[in-house]
């Protein structure tokens, strides 16, 4: 597999009335063509902000660290995403190489314009496609994502579609420009489980069919286990652990990942106690020193290195990294 996007040392702060808030800190990862990369994290973990930075979509008050670098590899050579400024330049990533779908499909479609018009509009904008061709492609895409009678759906409004169908239409629209990367930000969170299952299977089929890359953002480890090839676990803006999805879920190397798994109610053992992670997610204004997770990590002895020093991402198994000091990298059970 070849690299599609390299994210290196990504640090993002936001200017607010209360000062600079660090939302993403020193995040590095690579997205390969033809893979689904899962990005897991709770609220405030910086997963959405990280994803938006790939399209340079963060608000004006975002400040990127001087070391931050996002490189998109295209057929015409590499593009430094963070140096793009004008709307014209940005079109290369926004809707061109990268498409994004959001959590709430009702809010993503304009309510007073038909689904079809919205699909055609972006094709005309990004690919200069004539209307008739754009219409044909849109209807074909609606059909591909499993929407029945696509030509009549084409002329309907978002409110006329059910939740699952809306999310499918959103996916069809995002894929019709043939992006290299689809960013899916909590695409199934607002859906019922039965619909969620359909959307998960649809996205897996699409990766196999189009060979694109999906960055799948969710807070749900079960969804990740089913859909992703690799996963990165984020907490308070840092990657705590990343690696192949089987390794990370079966042999989690970081206390946070273990904590998340232990806190999940599991259907195969109803008597297993639910173990919450102690404490609360701190406010971004009160970022802990050292390892950001240390105040909630019950496995640490008081006075440990993690309270003062930021642990590096150590390789604990081939391709499997965790934010632990090297002396702890071997003790994973």
């Amino acid at each position, binding site marked *: 597999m070849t690299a599609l996007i390299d994210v290196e040392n990504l640090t993002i702060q936001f200017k607010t009335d209360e000062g600079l808030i660090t939302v993403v800190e020193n995040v590095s990862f690579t997205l390969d063509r033809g893979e689904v990369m899962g990005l897991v994290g*709770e*609220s405030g973990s910086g997963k959405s902000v990280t994803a938006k930075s790939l399209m340079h979509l963060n608000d004006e008050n975002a400040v990127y660290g001087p070391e931050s670098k996002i490189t998109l590899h295209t057929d015409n050579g590499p593009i430094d995403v963070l140096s793009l400024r004008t709307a014209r330049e940005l079109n290369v990533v926004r809707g061109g190489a990268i498409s994004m779908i959001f959590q709430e499909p009702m809010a993503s479609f304009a309510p007073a314009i038909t689904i079809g018009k919205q699909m055609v509009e972006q094709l005309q904008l990004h690919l200069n496609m004539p209307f008739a061709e754009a219409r044909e492609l849109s209807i074909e895409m609606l059909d591909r994502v*499993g*929407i*029945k009678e696509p030509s009549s759906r084409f002329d309907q409004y978002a409110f006329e579609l*059910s*939740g*699952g*169908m809306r999310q499918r239409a959103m996916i069809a629209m995002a894929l019709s420009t043939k992006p290299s990367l689809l960013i899916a930000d909590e695409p199934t969170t607002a859906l*019922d*489980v*039965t619909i*969620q*299952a*359909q959307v*998960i*299977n649809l996205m897996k089929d699409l990766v196999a069919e189009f060979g694109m890359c999906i960055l799948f953002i969710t*807070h*749900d*480890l*079960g*969804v990740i*286990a*089913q*859909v992703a090839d690799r996963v990165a676990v984020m907490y308070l803006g840092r990657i705590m652990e990343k690696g192949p*999805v*089987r390794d990370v*879920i079966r042999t989690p190397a970081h206390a946070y990942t273990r*904590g*998340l*798994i232990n*806190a*999940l*109610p*599991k*259907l195969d053992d*109803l008597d297993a*106690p*639910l*173990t*919450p*992670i102690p404490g*609360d*997610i701190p*406010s971004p204004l009160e970022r802990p020193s050292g390892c950001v997770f240390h105040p*909630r990590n019950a496995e640490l002895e008081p006075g440990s290195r993690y309270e003062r020093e930021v642990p590096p991402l150590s390789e604990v198994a081939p391709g499997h990294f965790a934010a632990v000091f090297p002396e702890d990298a071997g003790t994973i059970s």
Partner: protein
Amino acid sequence: MITIDNLSVHFPLGRRLIGTAPVVKAVDDVSLSIPKGSFFGLVGESGSGKTTLGRAILRAAPITTGTIGYNDGEARYDVGTIAKSELRDYRRRAQLVFQDPYAALSPRMTVRDIIAEPLEVMELTSGREETDERVREIAAKCRLNLEHLRRYPHAFSGGQRQRISIARALVCGPRFVVADEAVAALDVSIQADILNLLKSLQRELDLTILFISHDLSVVAHVCNHVAVMYHGRIMEEASTRELFANPGHDYTRALLSAIPSLDPDVPLNAQVYAPEGSVQHQ
């Protein structure tokens, strides 16, 4: 504790000059009995009528036909016909915990005032001292730091807010509580804590809880009895163990099969529930 017989809640859709107006059958001929001291789960997808059923029990949704009986051993009510004068007592006995702890708490009231409000509105205490005493007592039970009582909700995280919400629901000493998606808005690492708290409060205060949720795995862990709702009807009802070991209804099986497994090697093989004559929205 709660006995529901042939309950229907219909909401009219517009009016017709001739003939009867069409209705949404939010709850359709439901009979259910919630035993005293149980942690009773009500599961369903969006639009299944689970929230409307919970609201009907609390007399917050209109009852079209059928009856709801309430009996906690001290008081008995026919919920549909409670007189206005008795409603205050019923409200004290049957309370609600909301889903979204960000929307449920007034940003302009201190935590103490939020928790004390039910006592003051229902005039359950003889004075400020007794109110404060009750507030402190329930706050401690809900594991809230007493120093936090003077602060405003914005200072708290989602988990702490939900503990405040629970304290507010329990301060008047209810015997029956409807928890409607009480953990749905919370992060996983916090959700487990709130579930454990609800479970221990249920035992400690001898509560009967109707726990409404879309999440089968959550229900499996806290409830001892589960009812599955779909399109306004109860599809299946059984003890938690029985329901998860031997789901008796196709819809329950479809729901269970749609839950993504944490094991990447157990593929998601969701079955589709398509009863004959139903309209499929794909």
